[in-house]
């Protein structure tokens, strides 16, 4: 199998995995579960909390900042961008897991992730997620 084929296969299974993970997370919450702020995305809801809260509201309740540092290119990367906590989780859910499965070099990953970060930020802006 060539490297390109390998990448395609890994990407496909990565996407399947991410979809299954999201599916599972949705089933961990009762149907119609939502935070008081209106967030319904299962990725953003915190497990085992009553009442159900989103990640960002959870941080606020604990008196923490609603901003987190996002490492572009993996945890070892020094390229850190501050983003809202909920947006940070959405970034992770969208491509972090998938990228981790791919046989990429550090430079390749940094480049791809930067592109994905910028694209995804634009999508989130369009969807109205607060910055």
């Amino acid at each position, binding site marked *: 199998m060539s490297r390109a084929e390998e990448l395609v296969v890994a990407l496909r299974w990565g996407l399947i995995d991410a979809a*299954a993970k999201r599916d599972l997370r949705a*089933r961990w919450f*009762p149907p119609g579960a939502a935070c008081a702020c209106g967030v319904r995305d299962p990725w953003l809801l915190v497990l*085992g909390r009553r009442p159900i809260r989103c990640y960002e509201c959870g941080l606020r309740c604990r008196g923490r900042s609603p901003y987190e540092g996002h490492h572009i290119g993996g945890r070892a990367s020094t390229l850190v961008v501050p983003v809202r906590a909920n947006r940070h989780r959405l970034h992770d859910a969208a491509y972090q897991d998938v990228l981790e499965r791919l046989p990429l070099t550090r430079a390749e990953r940094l480049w791809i992730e930067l592109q994905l970060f910028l694209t995804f930020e634009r999508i989130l802006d369009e969807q109205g997620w607060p910055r």
Partner: protein
Amino acid sequence: MSARQLPPPWSLRQIAYRVAPIPKRPRPSQISPAWSEMCLIIETVRSEGLAGPARLGCYLLCRGEEVLARGFFSGPAGSDTDLTALGQLSRRLRLEAPRTLEQFLKLVYRYAYKKRLPLVGFGLAAQLASVAVDWRETDATGMFEGAIALILWTKPPTDKRDKTRLLRNGRIEDGHRPRVLCKLLADGSIVLAFANRGDPDYVDRIAEADGTARKGQVVRGHFVPLERFGYGLTGARTRSLADACARVGIDCTDKEPVDGGTDLLEAAECCLARAETAHRLYLELLDEHRSLGLTLPPDRVFSPASYAKATCDAIGITPPYGRYDGEVAGIGAAMCAAYGGWSGVGIRSVPDSPPLPVRVIDVASEYPVCAHRLGIWKLLTAERLTLQPVEPAKIKRWISRQRPGTFRLSPELCVFCRLRPDGDVLPHRIRPGATWLTNVAPLWYDDALWWPLPDLVRSYLETGVIPPIEACLTLSGSGRLADLRPIELPGLGRFDPRVEGADLFLFLAEGRQRLERGETNLDDEERNRLAALYKLWDNSLCSGIFLEVHPHEPTKQPQKGTVLGPDGSYETEAHGFEETGRWFFPPFYSLVTSAGRLLLYLAMHEVRAAGGTVAYFDTDSLAILATPEGGLVPVMGGRLTDDQGRECEHALSYAAVDEIRWSLERHSPYRRDTSDMTHSRRPSAAVREPMLFRLEPENFAADQLYFLAIASKRKTPYVITEAGAEPVSPSEFGLGHLLDPSGRGDTRWINDGWQSAALGGPEPDWLETPVLAHVTLTRYADIARLDTGTTASPRPFDTLVVAQADRIYGATSDGGIPRPVALYRADFTVEQAAWRDFATGLPLPHAASPPRDADEPALSRERPLYLRRMRQLFATHVRAPERKALDGNGQPCKGRTEGLLEAAPTVAYRAIPIGRETNYSETAGVLNEPEFTSFPGRGREDVAERALAVLRRAAHTARQSELASALGLSSSGLRRFLTSGRARAHTQTRVTHHAAVLACAALARAYPGQRLPEDPEVLLFLAERYHGLFDPPRCEGCGKQLNGRQKRWCERCRAQPRRRARVTPAKSQRLN
């Protein structure tokens, strides 16, 4: 029964009544998580077609209609060359690279266990078993007690200790992976789940729809066997994927599972096509499921009853036992009063009997109508339910006011009555053969049991005698559930339980009628499917779900436990107890079924009042002797004679039958215009037919329909054409489980068999083929018994071919009739199959046809396995006696009995408390007799009590030394026994037999020339009931009861010699 007449031996029977497990307070309905959009579909090709390990398989990982990944895998029976060939095929078909079994199982673990995606397949248990390495009997309790645990994930052995744990593939089990539990439920459904795995992680402990990780939380997975899901939605059990697809209107051109011995590539392509069909079927079923708008997850659908329960949950109805605040003993009383449908033969025909012209009518939704009339819906939605005592005199007065012509089913019938039946016509269970049958006939029994009031009303209407009621409990409800919500049902519209007069039972019954009449916008296929579904749904909702009990796996040693009998709870010992379902509430079930029997009786009464005769009846249908113009019809034992001097019965005219149907319409709750359910019940000119008692479609197969009834459930309507008699939808009872001998793959052979055996039709060419059936191996004990330790041993869920040994020539050398089974292989032939006895697991000789002539020397030289042929089966089938009826001469019905029958009365000498019959419905009657568990009551059994009473009496009149010697006891031993009543088992047996001999002698003197039964227990019963043998001895002088060591005289008479002299010794009653 006359005082000087003993009941005939055939009427002396043991009867049975149901006891209930102690009900648990039902848990509140759980919030179900949203159902996953993704699923993993698997399909395997087994090495032997329907048996053996998988050679290859195929998986589809899907999200909705989109297939995310698909590929092949090599099974346990596959080889490296198979994998190479599958690789080439995968490249050609642009699939994923084929996986080894280990890689495939990794995929299953990752997605079905860790990601908890639904695992879907047709025959899913068999598919998983075919990739299993080994299997064990699980030690789980609760729902999975006695289940088979499949071991799928293994690892190589690492140290010496592991060698003791080697599995069939030479590896050891991976303890960090779960086993798959498979259990066959009593209703024939298979339930699957993951067992716990070693060291479950945090994610595994998170409960769905809760989001909290809890210690002890187990991932059960979501298994969706498509045959089970399809049954829940269509009400039809299907044996093949094609059949299941046909039920929901999907084209399925795929072949049945091919065996791994054929061309690998052909098998692989077929496997892929089947997996894709399974995907389409799953989507279609899921679509139908979602259209019902219930929160029930598809993996919790076991039958249409699952939807019925989910509907109650959706409406906001809580389980009734949770709202019951009466005595728990009342539940035991209602359980004791639980009987099912009532069937029987009025005129029995044999193959040469003259044809019986009939009209067949049936009740449209009998149980829902009865439930509506009894006001069960109001009770089901009441805030509080209770069973309160009521004065028996009040009920007796109410019964005495009822008349058959004006009687109506009403909520006043919701009463349970305790009585000692004395010739009252009541339902009771008798066991003339292997199974318990419900008989409704005159019953005598000395102890009190419970019956629902509708049965007592029926007895009164038939006999004119008010039953001797001792106690009554009336079921009543108060208040109304607060959180009732409306629901939307596809094809029927909105049902709002908050509206005054709303009744879901009637809503579903009327809706079903509208669907059947085509008064909706749905297409025909959808209409028929919904009508069939709502029929099952409605029946479950008004009766079945309230008697749901789950029998535990039987244990070898009896266990102690508590059950609810007619007089309250008691401790008992049994081999298996039961557990109640969440909706368990027997008062509803008992009342609804009892009202159904009463409604059927009222219809039969109308027929008789009009001078007609009922030829056959079964729960909700009647075959009435009728011709277009009416007149006399020859019937053996008939009460009339025609001008040729033949015995006849009067056949009603069709018009008279219609008149009866119209007169019974007074029981109908149906609105005349059901097309608009919201309007009031105003009659509509559009409906010209009675809506409750309808003519069955068979009536229109020809100008005249005829009926041949042999026994309950063994009957066929037929028409006579120029070509001869042709059956119209004959009953499949006793035949439906057999393999089609004609090879056409449908049930037309049953028609042909009936036609040939009972109606003088042409002989089909398959009559000489052996009687075969397919059965799936679902119990660990059966698999272990048939395990030979070789690769040819059966695996869980393998298909067995079951044959029947010839009843005459098929006996083994020890005289037993074996139950031959063989593993179903691709190249299966009856002659070459390796037959084994299912009961013992021992090998049997090769199969052969029974000899035409009984050549005794030849039979003794060579003993092959003689199998029963279809000819013999049908010959026996059409001569089965109606075991609960008497012929015109008052003798029990036999195989050749013909003509009018009447219900056989029962004199019960014992009533035994039993649980649910048939623990293993799939093989009951095929491989094993239907099972039931008895729960003996408190104290000693009647027979021991009676034997002790006889001996105590004998000890007064006979010499104690003679009695002691007859019983093999010392004098002191006899004294101890007579005082304490306790004895060892073998002494007790001797005591019983000796007492029976004494009883027999006394009865023979008292009833000279009358036939006496042989059973010691029955003899003791007769001696007690008809001869007063157990009355305590009395003084010969003054008649006072004797006590202590007094033998003939009381203390006072003993002191008066002149008084004693007046009594001659000859007058004294002695046993010897």
